[in-house]
């Protein structure tokens, strides 16, 4: 009789940790791919806007460089930070695939830092986009003439760079969604 009581006792006294902590869905492969896409987008954005310098002779040589606008300088700085961040987290994500014990802790840090970087990338996109739009259309209320009819190559580079940065911010939002969903699936009911 005593021997049959024992298994029942141990079952009730020690809560089975496996039932309380579900393994959760593992989306780390998508995580690595998205982080690499973020790195690619940041790199392309920075390179395209930095190589967009153009000089037009009207008749004196008047160059157009990204350095001439503080908004574009901030854009380049923010996207460089995002690119560096994406390299580090891609490597961290790859490492987590090899060491699955790290995954739960890494998800938390990913959401935290991804949210911060999202703020940075989104604000950079908005900043550069706003100034680029004024350069494209001009604004007659404040007598700011459009410059894109003169500096077409520069405007193309800036436009492409902002578009790729927008793609980068969408990728960052997707990264947060993936991490939130993975965390959600690990939460015990």
């Amino acid at each position, binding site marked *: 009789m005593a021997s049959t009581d024992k298994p029942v006792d141990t079952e009730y006294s020690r*809560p089975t*940790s496996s039932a*309380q*902590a579900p393994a959760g869905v593992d989306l780390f492969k998508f995580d690595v791919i998205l982080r690499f896409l973020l790195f690619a987008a940041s790199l392309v954005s920075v390179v395209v806007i930095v190589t967009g310098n153009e000089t037009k002779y009207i008749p004196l040589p*008047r160059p*157009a460089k990204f350095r*001439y*606008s*503080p*908004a574009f300088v901030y854009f380049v700085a923010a996207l460089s930070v995002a690119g560096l961040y994406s390299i580090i987290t891609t490597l961290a994500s790859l490492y987590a695939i090899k060491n699955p014990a790290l995954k*739960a*802790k890494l*998800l*938390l840090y990913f*959401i*935290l830092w991804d*949210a*911060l970087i*999202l*703020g*940075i990338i*989104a*604000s*950079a*996109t*908005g*900043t*550069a*986009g*706003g*100034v680029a*739009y*004024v*350069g494209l*259309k001009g*604004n007659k*209320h*404040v*007598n*700011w*003439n459009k*410059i894109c009819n003169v500096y077409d190559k520069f405007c193309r580079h800036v436009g492409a760079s902002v578009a790729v940065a927008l793609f980068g*911010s969408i990728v*960052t*939002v997707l990264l*947060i*969604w993936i991490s*939130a*969903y993975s*965390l*959600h699936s*690990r*939460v*015990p*009911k």
Partner: protein
Amino acid sequence: MGKAVTLSASDLLMRLLAFILTLAAAIVIATDKQTKLVPIQISDSLPPLHVPLTAKWDQMSAVLYFLVTNAIACTYGALSLVVAVVNRGKSKGLWTVMIVLDALVVALLFSGNGAAAAVGVLGYKGNSHVNWKKVCNVFDKFCGQMAVSIGVSLIGSLAFLLLVIIPVVRLHRRTWSINN
């Protein structure tokens, strides 16, 4: 074991704060208008002509975008506050959906802030390379009100950012203590 996903009063307060701040930013920028008599020199012989010029928020697309993002964030803040109060942490799926939408609204708000700030800096300092003259020396009240609105919206976007971060930290601490 209690629910790992709970709703605390601080979450609701943060949501209320975010709603109030974005609403305030939207109202402050929407009521931003200044008319000033600007002397315009037609020619050197004639005395300068005083022309009433108006600076209003709707003259710049970036400021309009800023107003729209603040309006969206404010509406979302109100709706999510109501849903959170009604739900009171019962549904785990709703919590995840809220984090997802919060992240989206963070991105929108930050981009609106960036656009308005960029245009504000342009109006404040001008840009000599493209001959864009500054306007804030003339329309000082307009520029000051816009700066206040951007500042308030920035704090509101920080509140939305904390809304993403804090529940995740709390959830992770709870699951960590359950597993260990």
